[in-house]
């Protein structure tokens, strides 16, 4: 399982390099993007695919990173398991909220 975790953490990291560069560029230019323009971008099929991919990969990577941090600093086994589950739940909720928000544009 740990080997899988290590592998997935790296695969998502590599995938995130181009996705983060593009999204960073877009997020920084948000100040110059009008509301109509933003709705047009995010409401398009491409916008939906890119944004959900970005959030999917980044939340997956974030969830795995959090898991390692929790395992390192919380030593009580029961508490550790519960906090990891809670963290995974928050990441899942965040992902589904993103999809719902994008779908309702």
């Amino acid at each position, binding site marked *: 399982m740990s080997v899988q975790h290590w592998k997935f953490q790296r695969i998502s990291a590599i995938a995130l390099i181009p996705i983060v560069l593009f999204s960073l560029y877009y997020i920084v230019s948000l100040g110059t993007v009008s509301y109509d323009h933003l709705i047009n971008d995010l409401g398009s099929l491409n916008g939906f695919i890119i944004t959900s991919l970005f959030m999917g990969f980044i939340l997956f990577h974030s969830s795995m990173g959090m898991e390692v941090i929790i395992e390192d600093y919380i030593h009580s086994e029961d508490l550790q398991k519960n906090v990891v589950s809670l963290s995974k739940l928050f990441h899942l909720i*965040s992902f589904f909220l993103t999809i719902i928000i994008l779908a309702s544009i």
Partner: protein
Amino acid sequence: MNATKRPLSPHLQIYRPQLTSVLSITHRLTGFALSLVILLSPAILYFLTLSKDSHTLVMNLFQNGFVKLVLFLAIFGLSYHLCNGIRHLAWDAGYGLDLDSSYKSGYAVVATSLGITFLIILTSGAI
């Protein structure tokens, strides 16, 4: 796990900070902070897309000095985590593991991430 109160190794209280150890813990700190930002991001997305009024509200909030500072810190955190992440991937592939290369790549990561951050701050027209 037994609940002995022995100090954990490495003994950080008496451990002299070095570039390599500081960069390592910074990777974890930025990762943790970025996780919090990304978990909250659906809320920002929601208000940005809800209506013209809520969009204006968020854009005005971004003009606030404190919010701007947090945003710039997040951008630095992201560019640092990205650059240092690439350094980690190179290590995983077996490149640059010796001490000399680790220091050189460490300085390169600090310089590049600071460069990206300043470039973004200057080109975003925020200042």
